[in-house]
């Protein structure tokens, strides 16, 4: 057997003759004994040497075996320290107290070598068990860290593909997003389609973890590849409503055909004509959007529900067609917003969300988002992170940008 921590034995004994005898016995058994006559010195040695086995006398001046046991158990050693107490027959009560204080075993005086061997063997069994448990824990921790690392990487990959706030034609986009502690499956994007149109969407994949993130990433890529098809259909004169409905119908069926598990997702999808402000929206199980413009005194809820993607074959997805007024804002968000709970487990809810969206209408887009996010964080108060991904995307049909566009068109027209 290799000389490891468990082969080192510390003898704590004020009777020097006994100390020597014990040391000799232990050496003969193949242990490496160290000895001291003081409990304090024993503690000092234990802190500086890797020792897993202590044999201590019960009755010693300055620090008793009982006190030493208590002191060892009070300290947070990296490994387990097995304590054997040497006792005489008259010590039965203090022996019981010492076992309570943390001693593992005892051996009585006068020392019987056969008994000592048996006690030490049982000590080694316990220490070996402890060491293998420790080793297994270390391996588990390593694996856990690896998983956490991969999750964080998945999270930052998703964060990395989220679009920058930007203007597309007359439309400004801005957002806030916070991933839950355990990565969720929210993703959103917006991109131009031809010269006069754009597409935007938000997706929330059911569930959490790397699987949800992978699925969200797949949707992100699918939508990017759909861009060309949208443009072709628009150029062919199809209505935005028809293009949006057909796309969702086909996408749902394709997804169902390919999927191997219970995965599904909710989605809010939009196609917008940046010149006219006409927009076609499809709500697939995603929370309803919120709309406001300068002529309105209240916030309008857009959408009354729809089937998620990936649950029902041949599901129909009706388009909602709206005309955005100049200065109008449309807010799409994941249910992480409305399901955000305060300390009393009360949901933030749609009503409060509509109210903060309304209040923020007087602010510029960035300010509005900061204010809305502030309200939500205030609701969450001292909880460290959201239970679900929280995504909020607002698009503004911008007066200035629209004029700018018209002017540049005029310039082009004059040319």
């Amino acid at each position: 057997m290799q000389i490891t921590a468990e082969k080192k034995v510390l003898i704590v004994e004020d009777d020097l003759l006994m100390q020597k005898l014990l040391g000799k016995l232990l050496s003969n058994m193949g242990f490496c004994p160290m000895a001291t006559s003081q409990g304090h010195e024993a503690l000092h040695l234990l802190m500086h040497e890797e020792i897993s086995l202590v044999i201590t006398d019960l009755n010693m001046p300055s620090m008793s075996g009982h006190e030493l046991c208590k002191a060892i158990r009070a300290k947070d050693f990296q490994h387990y320290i097995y304590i054997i107490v040497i006792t005489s027959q008259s010590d039965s009560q203090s022996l019981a107290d010492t076992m309570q204080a943390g001693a593992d075993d005892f051996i009585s005086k006068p020392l019987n070598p056969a008994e000592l061997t048996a006690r030490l063997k049982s000590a080694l069994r316990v220490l070996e068990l402890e060491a293998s448990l420790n080793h297994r824990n270390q391996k588990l921790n390593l694996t856990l860290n690896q998983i956490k690392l991969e999750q964080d990487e998945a999270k930052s990959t998703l964060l990395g593909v989220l679009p920058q706030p930007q203007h597309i034609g007359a439309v400004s986009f801005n957002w806030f997003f916070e991933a839950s502690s355990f990565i969720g499956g929210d993703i959103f994007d917006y991109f131009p389609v031809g010269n006069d149109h754009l597409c935007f969407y938000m997706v929330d994949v059911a569930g959490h973890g790397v699987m949800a993130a992978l699925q969200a990433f797949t949707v992100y890529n699918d939508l990017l590849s759909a861009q060309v098809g949208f443009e072709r259909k628009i150029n062919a004169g199809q209505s935005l409503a028809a293009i949006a409905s057909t796309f969702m119908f086909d996408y749902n069926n394709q997804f169902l055909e390919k999927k191997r598990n219970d995965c599904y997702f909710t989605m809010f999808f939009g196609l917008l004509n940046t010149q006219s402000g006409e927009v076609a929206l499809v709500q697939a199980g995603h929370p309803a959007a919120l709309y406001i413009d300068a002529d309105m005194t209240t916030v309008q809820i857009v959408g009354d529900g729809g089937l998620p993607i990936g649950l029902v074959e041949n599901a129909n997805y009706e388009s909602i067609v709206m005309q955005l007024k100049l200065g109008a804002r449309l807010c799409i968000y994941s249910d992480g917003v409305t399901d955000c709970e305060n300390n009393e487990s009360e949901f933030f809810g749609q009503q409060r969300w509509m109210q903060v969206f309304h209040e923020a209408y007087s602010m510029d887009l960035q300010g509005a988002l900061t204010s809305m996010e502030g309200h939500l964080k205030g609701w969450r108060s001292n909880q460290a992170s959201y239970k679900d991904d929280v995504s909020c995307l607002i698009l503004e049909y911008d007066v200035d940008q629209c004029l700018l566009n018209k002017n540049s068109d005029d310039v082009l027209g004059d040319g």
Partner: protein
Amino acid sequence: MLESKVVNHVTCVKLAVDRLDAARTAEFKDKIEGVINQNANHVILNLSAIKFMDSTGLGAAVSVLKMLGSHRELILCGVSGMLVDLFKLTKMDRVFNIVDSEASALSAINAK
């Protein structure tokens, strides 16, 4: 998590937790699969104790529907509070057969 009984050859399963979310759906699916595989009965799923269900929970309800196949019926009852909104939002109120109580679910099945 589940309390189940058989009434007139119908398996009635009641969820005995107040949340069906990502943290619990794996256990739920596992347990309910065990319950519904014991016989070939129709199933009533009583959700009256559930105060919160997220999209994962909804997905689990859909997988129960799939486990039962086309010959066995699934009726949901006790759908209240935010669950009503969730089923409406996702239009799953049209996919599931939802009635108000276990008694009406039983008479709906027995009427067939």
